[in-house]
């Protein structure tokens, strides 16, 4: 009984049916473990480890230089739409309550997307694609992304960042 103290020798031999389950469960746990390093070798979707320290001011300067260099192909809801060269670095910043700028990318091309925040912690969620990352002030996170679908995707902030949180939606168009 689980409520009574154990006296005498209680570390009895484990029954074979229990041993079978513990053994199978252990093997399954090792498979769970192996999947993560294996996906780094063979899989196409992995968290990045390209991270740099930055400051909001320094990052803002880089983003402004990126927008300046363009090419700016349109304007959407007051945001410049930049269609960057895949050879160059691509930037997007999060701030209360906006993702800046909007981007136009090409399917199958690989881009280095630099993300940081000007103020609070934000969540970078590609909607409805369901690709989610965290964006922290002071950290410049570089995701190497390759769009495999065309159309419009939206950058939804999925980390609470104040009362205007739900308004923070940006845009990436892929053609």
């Amino acid at each position: 009984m689980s409520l009574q103290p154990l006296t005498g020798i209680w570390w009895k031999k484990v029954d074979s049916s229990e041993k079978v389950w513990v053994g199978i469960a252990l093997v399954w746990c090792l498979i769970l473990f192996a999947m993560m390093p294996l996906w780094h070798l063979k899989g196409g979707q992995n968290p990045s480890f390209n991270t740099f320290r930055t400051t909001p001011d320094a990052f803002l300067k880089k983003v402004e230089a990126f927008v300046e260099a363009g090419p700016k192909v349109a304007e959407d809801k007051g945001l410049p739409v930049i269609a960057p060269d895949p050879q160059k670095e691509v930037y997007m910043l999060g701030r209360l309550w906006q993702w800046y700028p909007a981007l136009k990318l090409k399917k199958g091309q690989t881009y280095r997307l630099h993300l940081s925040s000007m103020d609070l912690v934000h969540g970078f969620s590609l909607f409805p694609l369901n690709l989610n990352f965290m964006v922290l002030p002071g950290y410049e996170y570089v995701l190497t992304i390759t769009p495999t679908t065309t159309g419009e995707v939206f950058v939804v902030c999925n980390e609470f960042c104040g009362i205007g949180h739900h308004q923070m939606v940006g845009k990436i168009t892929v053609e």
Partner: protein
Amino acid sequence: MEAVFRTCAQTGLKIHNQAERLIKVHAVAGVFAILFGGIAAVLVLLTRWPAVHLLDPTSFYRALTFHGINMLIFWIIFFEIAVLYFAGPIVLSCRLAWPRLGWAGFGLMVAGSLLINTAILAGRADVMMTSYAPLQAVSYFYLGWILFAVGALIGVCNFFATLVVARAERTYEGSIPLVTFGAATAAIIAVFTLAHGAIIYIPTWLWSLGIISYIDPGIYRLVWWGLGHASQQINVATMVTIWYLLATLTVGATPVNEKVCRSAFVLYILFINLASAHHLLVDPQLSPAWKIWNTSYGMYLAVLASMIHGMTVPASIEVAQRRKGLTKGLFEWLAKAPWGNPGFAGMALSLVLFGFIGGITGVTFGAEQINIISHNTLRITGHFHATVVAGTTIAFMALTYYVLPLIFRRYVISQKLATLQIYLFAIGMTIFIGGMTTAGSYAIPRRHWDVQFATSQFQPPVEAAAFLFLGIMGVGGLFALAGGALYVVLTVGTVLFGRRVPDTPGAVPLAALPQDKGQHVPISGTLVLVFVFLASFIIYYFLNWKWLADIWLVK
């Protein structure tokens, strides 16, 4: 303080009156918290259900913060400290080590929770449960956390001190009972958790007072999650302990092999806290090697522990039932279990819902890469409602129906309603979780006022299916809320108006322990069940890898 004891006529245990009073006040505080959190839950649910969309954004974020903190922290930790006051002094039939300090700890917890709730309701702390710096709340909000954590830590230390007292005064022979062992596991994890709470909230408090100028958001997240997820691991250990306790009280179950059960608890102590790192899987500040090692709980050894308990708890029930002669076929022992007893029904539903939904989704979402398609979407909230609500909360509710007659010494005002309460809550939560998790797989974010993005800068089109599942979530949520309200009505009604339990043995029906005649009892029914579980786990896990492989390439 002189120790005064009574002997429980039902269990024969010696009960120290100070321990009993502390159990009562902590349990009452817990019920207040679930009442507050439940009222907020109505508002949150009716806002997230697009067909209703009740609150304005400010009220919604306030209600969400209030709901999360009252449910995840206050309800659960008050109840867990009550469990510690039971599993130490009462199970070991000894005096409580520090009665006065116990009351001081309770006072600090109440003061802390009142400060936090006041800050939120005053609109000075719309920061969610996580309160990620540099998002700032009013300073007394952080002070409240520190007081609450210190108060809870006193309760935990009182439990450890009581173990020392029991040993020194020889109130038991041999090794501590399994229930006390499980509670000790929870208490050890609690020390780690509460220490993290103090470590992160002291600088954050100073920062809110203007004494410290900067809190690094990456380091804040790392230390904070040592509190945030680890506090949920106290729940796991406590919940499993309650499963063993209720299995004993309801069908007279005895663990098949104590060595196996206790080793699994030790695995929790050693590895489960690494799971806190799950929340940082798509953060910039940590390397993939760090993420893989930590979030795998050191090669999934804590998952192994849960899978062991998932077998040993039903096995202990099967053995007890078969010894009573329920030996026909694979499942007569299960079919003829006391399903009308809320204690048994709650324990069984907690085990199944926690294991099948909470456990499988949690381990799957916690894989480094799969996290990319679940992080901060409704899939995550679906997962933790399965673990903390369908698992821990139902286990606590089921235990309440024994706490009321044995500690408050009142008969539950209606046993039938109590049984209905458990089923209503469990079925409602299952529908709710199904709707919520599936909506999350359409990328619907958590903590978001408007899933239709009506007032946003851009309006992403939302798939019709996502609305359907949000509607299912809403309907299930209403059933669960009715079950939760019934729980509050039954507990408050019983404490105030319940018939007194007489001090005669057998006044509260407790299961007799079946005779161990020494012969081998098969656990074939349990083995079938655990293999069904494993098959579901494998299918869900690899489906997620397939879904992941369909999104954009990223590294």
